[in-house]
């Protein structure tokens, strides 16, 4: 056959060059920033704080970047799922407040686990309703999506006020996660270490789901070319609802982590971090989970370092990171090919 002759004459393709440069940004930033600090303990404390904050931003942003990547939907209402996740902890903390004060690691962690479970279930269910009522009628129109999802956000925030009141609510960290690990002069808050563990675990699970399962294969394909996925016989809408629900639940998980970090709940707390969420998904590359992860760590570390080294620049540091990344890579750190 002619084709065989022709193809055999072709040289082997080189292995795909791995795009390591963006992956090296975070470790490079950590290492190269060390000499700028006067002492090691400040550097260690700020680095751990930055990593923990980055993990929490990743949890809050990962769902949104997938939703945008898969169905080209800009959900400005994503922030409300962060707030709802945070407030859902009250459902658990009300009757089980004693677990937080108990002198038992298992009760403390069990309480946090229950908070996470209830928050993810709550935001997942509300996410399904939000997609059905608010988002579905405006597929294909970015302007309408922005207007309608902002409307949905305002309604949901007012519902939080109606249910839990307009005043800020304080919550306490479970006993086990209070305090810090002390290494020499460096103090590393226990909760930040816990947040890093949760963030890494969620990233690992997402990575495995996206790369080792058929549903992950479908999501990755859908992000690239939803029309072709439909042409292969898969219902992209059903997949989208699943991703939207999962994204909302992840935002809820992020909300729980953020709530215990701040230890104060307000209805607008989700919307307050949305600027960071948008910056992170743009820096990472729209629709890219890996990019979202690296972008979150990068933005959070820079914010912490700049806040300490040059406080006057702290407010613009995130925008500066985004501008520099976009000048270097206009599609973000890990651009997703869309057709």
């Amino acid at each position, binding site marked *: *056959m*002619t*084709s*065989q002759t*022709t*193809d*055999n004459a*072709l040289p*082997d*393709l080189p*292995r*795909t060059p791995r795009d390591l440069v963006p992956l090296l940004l975070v470790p490079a930033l950590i290492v190269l920033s060390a000499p700028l600090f006067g002492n090691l303990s400040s550097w260690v404390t700020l680095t751990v704080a930055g990593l923990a904050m980055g993990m929490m931003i990743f949890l809050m942003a990962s769902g949104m970047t997938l939703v945008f990547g898969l169905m080209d939907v800009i959900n400005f209402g994503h922030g409300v799922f962060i707030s709802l996740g945070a407030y859902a902890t009250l459902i658990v903390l009300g009757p089980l407040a004693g677990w937080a004060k108990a002198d038992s690691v298992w009760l403390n962690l069990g309480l946090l686990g229950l908070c996470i479970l209830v928050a993810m279930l709550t935001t997942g269910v509300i996410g399904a309703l939000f997609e059905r009522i608010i988002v579905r009628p405006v597929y294909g129109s970015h302007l309408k999506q922005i207007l309608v999802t902002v409307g949905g956000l305002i309604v949901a925030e007012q519902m939080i006020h109606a249910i839990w009141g307009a005043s800020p609510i304080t919550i306490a960290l479970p006993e086990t996660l209070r305090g810090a690990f002390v290494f020499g002069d460096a103090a590393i808050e226990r909760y930040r270490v816990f947040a890093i563990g949760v963030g890494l675990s969620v990233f690992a699970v997402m990575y495995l789901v996206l790369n080792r399962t*058929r549903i992950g*294969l*479908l999501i*990755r*394909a859908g992000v*690239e*070319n939803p*029309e*072709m*996925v*439909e*042409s*292969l*016989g*898969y*219902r*992209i809408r059903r997949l989208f609802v699943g991703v939207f629900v999962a994204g909302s639940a992840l935002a809820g998980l992020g909300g729980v982590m953020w709530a215990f970090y701040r230890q104060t709940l307000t209805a607008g707390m989700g919307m307050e971090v949305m600027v960071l969420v948008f910056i992170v998904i743009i820096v990472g590359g729209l629709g890219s989970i890996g990019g979202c992860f690296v972008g979150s760590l990068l933005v959070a570390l820079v914010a912490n370092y700049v806040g300490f080294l040059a406080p006057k620049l702290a407010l613009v540091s995130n925008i500066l990171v985004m501008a520099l990344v976009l000048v270097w890579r206009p599609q973000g750190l890990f651009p*997703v*090919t869309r*057709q």
Partner: protein
Amino acid sequence: MTDATLVLDGVHTHIGPYHILHGVSFAVPKGELTMLLGRNGAGKSTTLRTIMGLWQASAGKILFEGREITRQETPDISRSGIAYVPESMGIFAGLTVQENLVLAARSGAIDKNRLDWILSLFPALKRFWSLPAGNLSGGQKQMLAISRAIIEPRSLLLIDEPTKGLAPVMIRSMIEAFKALKEAGETILLVEQNFHAASVLGDSVVVIDDGKVVHRGAMAELVTDRTLQQNLLGLSLDAHQ
């Protein structure tokens, strides 16, 4: 027509304010390769997309194996047994060659015998099995797109301009592959601009112009009638050999 796998009956398609197809009617006989020819913008790709439900027909009927699919959604049309290779090929660039094929095998696992047959048609794919499809050349991507369409038995293949932009040597490979598919009894509706490829492969031909069918008949008849070629397509076979 009783032995037709696909029948289009007076199909109209509107895209926004534009009326693209104006009552297109033709049939694709079972086990044959039907060429859909026409100049750029005549409505060939729109015809395929309308069959797949990617654009809804505004009037008329589309029958597949005797069942109306005009208003069905794309996934249902695909699951009924129609495979589609768009002009852009629709390759998932970030997925490996293997993952592209696994995704197309809706039953889950890829049948080994069928895979061996496909790899005998397109041996290059075996070599690039674990590489991202985005790394392949244009011709190799087209091979992957067609492999994906035939990874499971389908009743009808819709393929849009498979030789577009390919080097002559790749076009010859593609023609050989289509000959093998014909021998395997596949029913194919093929959009093609390359008249030489069309003349070699086609059993029957449908010519579209301005969204209307202007000719239907045997491919052999069009190949031997140069006046007809000139009238319908503004070309002669000699010029494309």
